């Protein structure tokens, strides 16, 4: 990489400078290349969000999803017994609920404002998990249902026993990616069943069987073993979806709110069939929230 220098003094000096530069680049190009690649990779990572990651995962699943499906099929086969027992238990539970409703059914409902006119608020779609992780701080779940099956972003994901699992963040033609409840970016609101005070559900990235409910008001009635459910305030989850059971509740230093350890009801390491729930009212609620009047009130000093 050394240039041949001409005889004239001026040109020779220029040539020697060029040679020194080439020599410098030759001796440091590995470091320069390393710095450039690292800077680009860090920049891309720093600007990524769970949505960017889900989009990337959806792209790779579009290509590699077939093999994931093959492996999950084998895993699914060996879990059929357990799955069947869970489904039978769920059917029995729903049958008993249905029987109770039939007994209390009357021509005029007690609260006429609860009558649902036209389309139902929630639509359910069954799906099977093809890929799921619990060992990262940002875990995602991939399903074998996509746009062609009517799956959309923001659909809630429930386990086969009806417990909270996550919500859909990215959809391709045949697959969907959901942010797992075991993702440090996941947030939902929760409360103790039968109580009115709510807290924020999040995962601290430590135990795959436990999540934390923070900022639960100190007035909440809470005991170990109580069931924690969704509040219905979230745009993704219907109300009263079970999340888990209370393991421990500690008041914070200021004695104003509880931090609650919640043992998950969904068996996250063995997810097989799941239920995707679409909230048909969500677009209407969102358009109301984004309406000019609401925006104007938000921006009012």
């Amino acid at each position, binding site marked *: 990489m050394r240039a041949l220098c001409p005889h004239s003094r001026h040109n020779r000096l220029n040539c020697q400078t060029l040679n020194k530069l080439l020599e410098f680049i030759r001796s440091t190009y590995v470091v320069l*290349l*390393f710095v450039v690649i690292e800077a680009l*990779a860090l920049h891309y990572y720093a600007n990524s969000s769970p949505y960017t990651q889900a989009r990337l*995962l959806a792209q790779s699943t579009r290509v590699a999803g077939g093999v*994931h499906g093959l492996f999950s099929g084998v895993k699914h086969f060996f879990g059929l017994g357990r799955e069947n027992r869970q489904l039978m238990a769920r059917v029995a539970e729903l049958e008993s609920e249905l029987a109770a409703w039939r007994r209390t059914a009357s021509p005029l409902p007690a609260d006429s404002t609860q009558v649902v006119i036209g389309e139902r608020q929630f639509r359910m779609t069954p799906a099977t998990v093809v*890929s799921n992780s619990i060992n990262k701080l940002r875990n995602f779940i991939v399903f074998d249902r996509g746009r062609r099956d009517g799956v959309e972003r923001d659909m809630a994901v429930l386990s086969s026993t009806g417990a909270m699992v996550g919500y859909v963040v990215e959809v391709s033609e045949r697959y969907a990616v959901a942010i797992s409840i075991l993702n440090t970016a996941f947030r939902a609101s929760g409360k103790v069943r039968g109580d009115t005070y709510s807290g924020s559900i999040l995962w*601290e990235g430590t135990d795959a069987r436990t999540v934390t409910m923070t900022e639960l008001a100190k007035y909440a009635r809470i005991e170990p073993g109580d069931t924690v459910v969704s509040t219905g305030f979230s745009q993704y989850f219907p109300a009263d979806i079970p999340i888990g059971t209370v393991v421990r509740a500690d008041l914070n230093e200021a004695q104003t709110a509880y931090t609650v350890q919640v043992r998950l009801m969904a068996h996250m*390491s063995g997810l097989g069939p799941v239920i995707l729930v679409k909230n048909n009212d969500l677009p209407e609620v969102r358009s109301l929230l984004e309406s000019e009047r609401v925006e104007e009130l938000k921006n009012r000093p």
Partner: protein
Amino acid sequence: MMHRSFRFILLFVVTQLLQAYLFNNLTIGAWFNPLVYVSFLALLPLEMPRGVLLVNGLATGLVADWFMGTAGLNTCVAVFAAFTRPFLLDLLFGKENIRDGGVPSPERFGEGGFLRYAASLVGLHHLLFFLLEALSWAQIGQMLGRWLVSSLVCVGFTWLMARVFTSKLTVRV
């Protein structure tokens, strides 16, 4: 030469597929996250120029990011591993020894030497990965636990791959 290149391509494919389809989907626990694709970088020939090593690190990281949806994180740590590897080798075995070339393996460095090398490279790679993944000191104990468990599993995997991979390769050029 072609035969050796083919074996390295095969090693790249095997480690990436095992990472994507097996280790990424193992739901043993939040502490178990071995990034076994780094074994490919650990077993590349000693005489490989540093620039080519970086390109291999880049390719390894990009494919891992694509499979795991991690948007640059694996690229960053794989390139870091590829960059630090020659320094680690010089430090552990001396420049003269490394200049002789060959494939890093228990036969080439001895069982203890190879394990020291694999533990250093895998440990550094995993440490940077978990630090960047957490981007916080709040759960430092948990992070160190994940690092230790995952690194140990990955060192074991690298040792196994070195045994299988170099069984019919000349370890000293």
